[in-house]
């Protein structure tokens, strides 16, 4: 019995200390050659991105933001993110996100934006009357302008939807009503810089 207990203690303490020593070892191994990546073969990228944040080098479009806009860190969804700051301290947010295919459809997505402004959803016919077309090069944007309520009072969303062959891009400017309206020309000019790679 007197031998058993110290043995138990020794084993337990050894295990406890082993728990604290998880070493990061460099591994070397040989594996069958991976299938060449999309970049190497020219095949469209497979939807195997395990990273939640988009790889900026694989985005099929490019844009040029105005020099007065400040780039912000991308979140897990955003492919572009900017802050517009006014002289009076007002701030508006510009985001660029994309979804595969038609991403649930235009009506649902525009109503999603309306929901962010606490506005009631519109029917497909009403949506058709609330949108405008903007053409730039070979790209066609569907542009909307909604005013509703945000956490800090009247808020405006000026949005543009760009449908490509296999994904849809959403450009959104959101900010205090008056400031967002003032930023509208810069946002429209920004949309005109968007081009396919």
């Amino acid at each position, binding site marked *: 019995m007197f031998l058993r207990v110290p043995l138990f203690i020794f084993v337990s303490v050894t295990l406890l200390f082993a728990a604290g020593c998880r070493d990061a070892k*460099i591994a070397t191994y040989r594996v069958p050659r991976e299938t060449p990546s999309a970049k190497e073969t020219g095949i469209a990228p497979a939807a195997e991105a395990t990273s939640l944040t988009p790889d900026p*080098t694989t985005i099929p479009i490019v844009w040029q933001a105005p020099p007065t806009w400040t780039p912000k860190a991308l979140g897990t969804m955003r492919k572009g993110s900017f802050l517009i700051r006014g002289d009076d301290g007002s701030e508006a947010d510009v985001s660029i996100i994309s979804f595969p295919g038609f991403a649930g459809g235009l009506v649902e997505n525009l109503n999603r934006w309306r929901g962010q402004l606490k506005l009631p959803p519109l029917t497909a016919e009403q949506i058709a009357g609330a949108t405008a077309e903007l053409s730039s090069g070979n790209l066609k944007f569907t542009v909307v302008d909604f005013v509703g309520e945000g956490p800090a009072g009247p808020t405006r969303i000026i949005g543009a939807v760009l449908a490509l062959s296999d994904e849809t891009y959403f450009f959104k400017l959101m900010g205090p009503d008056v400031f967002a309206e003032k930023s509208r020309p810069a946002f429209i000019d920004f949309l005109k810089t968007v081009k396919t790679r």
Partner: protein
Amino acid sequence: MRDIWSSFVKFFVSLQLTVVLLSLSIILIFAATLDQVNLGIWAVQEKYFRSLFVLWNIKGFPVPVFPGGYFIGGLLFINLVSAHAFRFKLTWKKSGIFLTHLGLMLLLLGELFTGLWQKEYQLRLDQGQTRSYSESYRDNELAITDASDPKWDEVVAIPEKRLASGEPIQVAKLPFRVAIRSYYTNATVQMRDQLPNAPAAPATRDIGAKLALFPMAITYKQDDRNLPAAVIELFGPEGSLGTWLVSTMLMEPQIFDYAGKTWRLSFRFARNYHPYAITLLKFSHDRYLGTDIPKNFSSKIHVRSDDGKTDRDVLISMNNPLRYDGMTFYQQSFANNDNTSILQVVRNPSWLLPYVACILMGLGLLVQFGIHLFGFFVKRRTAVSS
């Protein structure tokens, strides 16, 4: 000497120690629950429960401020074992308590072994795709691959921790030394040509020369992950080969030639290779008729082992995982318009221990209550008859 030993034994068998340890564990659980708001469940488990001490970073030095889960659990285990070795006596009347305590010991050991040995990975497969590796959720690695052979890849996988340490890395299989110029636990990258007043490029070679790097706050959210990045410089015998920006945001490897070989650089989820390949034959997302309410998710896969002993189809559904070669494959999620199946892959050699422990504890309580109940009936019958 004998006195020291007896006081040592007395300390470990004492019921006071049990009470103190249980009180400490209550405080530990309470603090960890509060801190979960800041750290998220994963980091809390590591910081509070799977550690000997809870460490606070004071002026850059980790200072132990409270006993951690392994310390308290370990002492409880020793306390319980010592009590049985020195204090309790095995009798039929107390057999239930013994069984219950045995179950408790197994439960404590089970948690220790799970903490030490459990590994969790993810396997993402598009329909028709075959993979022989799964990927870690949280751990990343810098893979430097000699891609000169058309059939085989020679991989040197450097864990993220080594990049974070900042120390230069020299591996016999690499003809160059890897120096870590900077490391970021969480950072985002953007194309410089899309940014007004873009900051200087962080690297000189490949895509790093066209990107801007923005460090971000470390996230502890459960549904979010940090995206580490690093700027590395490679040195051959003749000097610097240039600097590369490696980021987990970049899906494509960066390719370069050196010493007559083609090399690929990729900062990616840490991979765990299996001696078998899994192909996703079909992913099914069944809904209740006429609704969008999910009814069942299942993946029909094909498993083929390298040694040819296994070559079969398997259906994995939500409560029917595949257990194979020490790994368990659960249906976890799906993506890409139902074309991609995501399987959770878990390796836990001690997965049976909690079940055995709970059965033993249940049985022990049943036996103990049964003995008492039986004693009570006997006593009552004797009282009535007298």
